[in-house]
């Protein structure tokens, strides 16, 4: 199937408060095809809330509005909670930052992954176990039989994140939303986890939304980048051209990064322009 997997148009998320409505996401529009789309921004820019709104996983008091939120011909705005349950995990997967909190601490990792498979696919216990072991191997876990019986506290952060990836990919979704999937990992582990994600996403023809605060990482890992500031997408460009970004906010962020190959007496500090909020 060609055409975008996901179309988002005019997505807004607002939180009511005593001081009036606080907007977290303000009229965001983008599409995702079989590609890796990065969403970058600082804390509070609305990048995570955008990812959650797609799965309708915003907090109950959040008000979500969108002109269009279409996933593979399904209107997510109109979808009932029952329909959403059939979509979450099964068709759109989500990987969170820290596997320590995202995995069930009192169940072995193998059983959790097998459960993810059996909830979404009719399968016998034996088949689920076979598929789980194959999936563990696909995320390059060397001894899948041993890891199958481990509890989450017995695995390292990098392995935990590979287990999360295995669990999210086993129901064979069309779209994966990864919210800071490697921020809790050491740099060398980060690269190996990203490589697994990269291979599986391109092999299986998935769409990937990669939410991150790390500009360098997104520029080198993704195909396209959306830069968010105060709930809006201020700039959208091919990842390879991120360093030629034109928006003053993107430029300011890039400038303020300390560089390994150039020493500057002072780091330029981002001057925030109120006009970015409106324009």
């Amino acid at each position, binding site marked *: 199937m060609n055409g975008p997997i996901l179309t988002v148009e005019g997505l807004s998320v607002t939180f009511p408060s005593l001081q009036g409505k606080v907007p977290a996401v303000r009229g965001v529009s983008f599409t995702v095809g079989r590609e890796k789309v990065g969403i970058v921004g600082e804390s509070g820019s609305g990048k995570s809330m955008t990812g959650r709104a797609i799965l309708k996983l915003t907090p109950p008091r959040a008000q979500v509005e969108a002109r269009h939120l279409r996933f593979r011909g399904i209107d997510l705005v109109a979808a009932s909670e029952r329909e959403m349950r059939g979509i979450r995990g099964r068709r759109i997967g989500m990987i969170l930052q820290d596997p320590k909190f995202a995995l069930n601490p009192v169940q072995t990792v193998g059983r959790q992954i097998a459960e993810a498979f059996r909830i979404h696919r009719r399968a016998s216990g034996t088949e689920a176990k076979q598929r789980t072991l194959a999936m563990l191997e696909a995320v390059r876990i060397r001894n899948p039989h041993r890891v199958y019986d481990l509890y989450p506290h017995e695995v390292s952060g990098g392995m935990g994140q590979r287990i999360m990836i295995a669990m999210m990919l086993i129901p064979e979704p069309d779209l994966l939303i990864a919210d800071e999937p490697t921020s809790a990992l050491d740099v060398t582990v980060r690269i190996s986890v990203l490589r697994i994600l*990269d291979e599986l996403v391109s092999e299986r023809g998935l769409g990937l939304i990669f939410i991150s605060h790390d500009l360098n990482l997104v520029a080198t890992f993704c195909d396209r980048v959306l830069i968010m500031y105060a709930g809006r997408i201020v700039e959208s460009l091919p990842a390879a051209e991120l360093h030629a970004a034109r928006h003053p906010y993107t430029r300011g962020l890039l400038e303020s990064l300390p*560089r390994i190959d150039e020493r500057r007496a002072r780091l330029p500090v981002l001057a925030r322009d109120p006009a970015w909020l409106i324009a």
Partner: protein
Amino acid sequence: MSRAFVSVRDLRVSFGRGARLIHAVDGVSFDVAEGEVFGLVGESGCGKSTILRALSGLNPDWSGEATIAGRPVARTRDPAMARTVQMVFQDPYGSLHPKHTVETALMEPVRIHGLGDGPRRIERVLTEVGLSPAFRYRYPHQLSGGQRQRVAIARALILEPRVLLLDEPTSALDVSVQAEILNLLSDIRRTENLTYILVSHDFGVIAHMCDRVAVMNHGVILEELTVEALMQGRMRHAYTRELYEASAGYTRRLERSGEEADVAA
């Protein structure tokens, strides 16, 4: 180095016992000159923060020798050493008492060390870290992450130390705020002639701040290099190169990169 201001010889820290004994720091030696910024870089669990905790007196259970400003670092609480060495922690959300105002937090070291003249000192350090004196009445939850880290730096400065131990001081902050805090640290170092030992996992931050850096893995220093060598990618150790290349972002190749590179160290 002409004369070492901070000197560490064969520092060892271990946790646990018997079969579970872990050598977190396994015989580390280095020297830092006065006014220098010395970096410790490595991945989690390599022992870099443990070294700072030993030097600052937070962990008295270590062996080896360490001198700071010509005085040996004692295993017991030593108020004079606390005035010489202060520490700034990674997480500004966790390192300030949530129920203490900025003033209470800053007053505590003044009171403990019997320095007197508290209000004037507080005003001076707050100005120095770029906060208006009115901030003294605020609670941590009324501050942004960057402002909290400024308060944490003010608290370290109020005793007029000679050495600051910085444990990942900006890794919990957004990049634009990180730039402000790194600039602040550079300014303070110049005006107060401070010596820094900076722990970080970020080669960008290390290259920006440090004069020399020690690369750590599994509790030992693999190599020590000048920042010029780091910036030009002239490292001897394969592990350092792996970290260096990983810090540049994602590459499709780099299959356990360093293994085939020559290991000279």
